């Protein structure tokens, strides 16, 4: 009897170890994003002020890289918009809108770029092009989540290969395109 239990436990153990690889490979995506040098709220800009994503990330449909707006672009509005001197609940932490905008103006006076922290990172060694996906008619939210409703931006999806492949497989028009979309050289070179 004791032996059979031992045997069972061993087999279970091996199973756990192997599936361990599996879970290790799609660990859950971290929910809350990193704290940025300026508490920039996408919600205020995209939802309240109704600014479309492409206004700031202007290269998204012409370049592989969507582009982070230059400080000049920020100042384009914030020359005039000083911000109301009110507190704002920024995902739990209370911030003062005016003082946050003041930070931006501070950077501008010092002619210093704002050192944003990258939120959505591709794994290395893959060549992703925003242009193609936008031109194909995908919404930003499909990969980045509903950024418009986020204050602090956080990665909504873990952008790993499984994520790409699932989408590529679902959206292939015909067999030939599927072959192209699942061809390694399409992204890895």
């Amino acid at each position, binding site marked *: 009897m004791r032996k059979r239990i031992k045997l069972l436990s061993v087999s279970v153990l091996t199973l756990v170890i192997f599936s361990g690889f599996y879970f290790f490979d799609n660990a859950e995506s971290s929910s809350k994003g990193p704290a940025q040098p300026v508490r920039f709220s996408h919600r205020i800009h995209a939802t309240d002020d109704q600014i479309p994503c492409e206004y700031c990330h202007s290269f998204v449909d012409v*370049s592989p890289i969507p*582009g982070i707006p230059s400080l*000049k672009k920020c100042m384009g509005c914030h020359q005039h918009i000083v911000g109301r001197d009110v507190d704002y609940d920024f995902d739990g932490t209370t911030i003062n809108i005016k003082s946050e905008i003041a930070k931006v103006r501070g950077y501008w006076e010092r002619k210093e*770029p704002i050192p944003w922290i990258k939120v959505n990172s591709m794994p*290395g060694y893959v*060549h992703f092009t925003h242009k193609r996906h936008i031109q194909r008619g995908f919404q930003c939210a499909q990969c980045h989540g509903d950024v418009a409703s986020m204050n602090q931006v956080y990665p909504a999806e873990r952008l790993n290969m499984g994520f790409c492949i699932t989408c590529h497989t679902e959206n292939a028009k015909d067999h*030939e395109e599927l072959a192209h979309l699942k061809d*390694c050289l399409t992204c890895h*070179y």
Partner: protein
Amino acid sequence: MSQEKKGGLKRRDFLKIIGVAGGTAAVTGACSPPVEQIIPYVIPPEGIIPGVPNWYASTCRECPAGCGIVVKNREGRAIKVEGNPKNPINAGGSCALGQAMLQGLYNPDRIRSPLIKNDTGRMQPAGWENAETALVEKLQEAMQKGSGSNIVFLSGHTPGSMGNLIDEWMTAIGGRHLSYETYAFEPLTEANRIVFGIDKIPTYNIDKTKYLLSFGADFLETWVSPTLYTRQFSEMHSYKDKSMGKFVYIDPRASLTGVNADEWVSIKPGTEAILALGIASAIVSGGMSANGAGPFGGLLSRYTPDKVSSMTDVPEETIKEIAREFSSMQPSLAIGGGVATTTTKATETLVAVNILNYVAGNIGQTIDFGNTLTLSDVSSFDDISSLVESMSNGEVDVLFVYNVNPAFTLPKSMGFEDAIDKVPFVVSFSSFMDETTEKANLVMPDNTTLESWGDFIPNESVHGLIQPVMTPIFNTKSTGDVIISVTGQLKGFENTFSQKDFYDYLRNAWKEVWTSSTGGGDFDSFWDKALEDGGIYKTTSPVPVSVSGDLSGVEFSEPEFQGDGDFYFMAYPSYRYYDGRGANKPWLQELPDALTTGVWDSWVEINTETAEKLGIKLGDYVRIESPQGAIETQAYVYPGMRPDTVAVMIGEGHTSYGRYAKDRGVNPITILPVAKDALSGGFAWFTTKVNISKTGKYTPFVQTQYTTSEEDRPMVGTVALSSLVSGELEQEHGEHEEPDFYPPVKHSSQYRWGMAIDLQKCTGCGACITACYAENNIPFVGKELVAKRRDMAWLRIERYFEKTDNKAGFDTRFLPMLCQQCGNAPCEPVCPVFATYHNPEGLNGMVYNRCVGTRYCSNNCTYKVRKFNWFSYKFPEPLNWQLNPDVTVRDKGVMEKCTFCIQRINYAKDQAKDNGRKVLDGELQTACQQTCASGAIEFGNLLDEESKVSKLSHDERGYKVLQSINTQPSITYLKKVKWDKA
């Protein structure tokens, strides 16, 4: 595009941009990426979209040929140099030197700020203010003395605004401007003056000739305008519509140009003139001359073939044969004047060559005096030697050195180093700490060509523009700007230049160009157009020339050689280092020499029999002694040398000039005497005899190919011209399907990428290799690792010396070998993790980040074209700025190889998608194909019946290397054609 347009971003900004270009990340084992910052622009530079390349046209200054270039710029970094298709000189092609420009720009050994030599003799970094005030002081002093010629500006060949600026400046402050080129081809100019009364270097129309006869003119390597003549040569020497031109090379050494000839005729050093006259007289006496002997009848009658044969060691029948072919295969052309054959009788030789051309009726046909080169405007060697004299006599107070390195390129015996020590104040504008700059008291580093404004006029038809393709990396300043601002600070010269900087000066200069050339339109649009095209290009019309029979002062005799040695000593210019300026670029150091496949070093080439007699083996160290000194270097035993001649390449042997060049190889110039060509006064390179002896030291000769024979394997296909013309080959060529055990593979219906390489066109110059390094982030590994055969080149050029019955006794064959993208690839099925596989478009994919490094694929590769990352190779700052963000930088432990520039394929497909069409034929070029001046490589879509490549892949000369292994490569090679009839 104005300066702001493409400048704009500061160095620190774009260092950070590199962070954005994440594509360049290396393949490592890292699981979670570290916190990565994104640094946006403060003020975005206009015209730059991150992730989208910009192209800027400019002009190459690596040699006086003045080819046009276009430079690819990503996020403000120049990442690739390519030939400018619009420029009539190189028409899109480029040589290895041109490709390697970037490593000049990003060279870690660049001088990063002005340097002032302090009392202890050490160079100290300084700001531009101090540097300029220091210069102003010294200049003031010198001008007080005002001896008129005590200020000398020694520059390279700089025709155009920069040259004019220097001239103006020197005349203004009472100085002299000398322009010095290592290879000035003065005899060529002089000979033309004597025979045609025009002291210029014409443009030769090699492409229009049927029969080319070169007396030591290495036009594929360094002679006058290599890229231009490579293209023309391939035009004339390639097989099309059942005919092909013939090329005979006459030289004691079979240079790279020589081995590309159909016949290499080894000749007694210095007797080229006599041979030329011999051929001419044979033509005349044979009644084969188009326009008779003209004024030279008397002269020629003295050179009967038998007499000539005995004087030149060239068999009589060879002379007669050449004469027959030269006169019958019209239009023909004879050229000469290669550096390595420039004896004290160089001018006579070229006069004789001109006579030969005249006799065959080639004047005005294949020699175009309408489009002459500006190269003949450089100061004569006499001027240079007198300068050295006056320097050593202390008559020079201030010496400016700009774009030249005389301390390296002038013979030691000339005493330039001592002379320069006598000059109280030497100013160097060099970007590198070279031998001359070391002697300078003040270094004012110039921007490299890729960072500065300027223009360059190589010949009548081309007026090339130079524009900065990126903001200066270091604290350097354009010499033009320096001159203008310094002049502004000189008392009494505040208003010499009205312009605020050199850019301004240049635009003014071009206003004149504008009025003279087009006139119409407004200047700005003209200017922008010129910037876009890389300059303006005129078509010139040939000018008729008359021949003067007056050869007074010209007497044809054998030149005398100094020294009592047994061997003629030939110092030949390198097509990789030119006059040594290329030696600090790792790509060029690691580019295997086409003939020896040697790298990172120099060697002495010794004839096979001679070596046997002296008991010298490959790799033995040999001491070469001339009256002027001795050098020791490794021996390379080479059948393509005359038994009584030894040759050493110029370019290595730097005592300074950065980590990659310093203390590497030997500089043959050091043991040359100061000899002059009697008539032209130009420097005579080939004038000394040496003794050679084994030192007893031996180390294995580091090369990339250790075999010289094909070992009876079908590597390089060759076919006799006759069998082509007669159509024999066509019959036997018929393509047939190999039966296969498995059903055919399903491919994409859109594209099937393929390549065709014409071995008849390939000259083995290796520009493609360097282009591949540049495009694909291939690391250079250094001599020690190449010795272990760990060079990372994805593309190698195999060279074989096969015994044949031609005059040379051997036949040199080049085979560019890269991944064949096999349809039935042996490497694919053996990979346990699918890291390499067959993609729908017929490519042999290589997924670096999936590779675990079993290296089975390489073991099973029939062509051994896969390279493995034995270590993580480093690109010393700022060389890493050149890395192509579209290509993964491989890290240790993964296999890598050519994938037909997959990043370019994907880019082209992306562009095509934007315009809703398929990729057009010719729109997409691989890096190797793009740079190939001889157009040997063709690439495209095999499914498109009309594409050039699919036509070539069915060519009668087409074959696959090692076809019998049934790997079904996507690369079709076109057989090399052998002349077997006149």
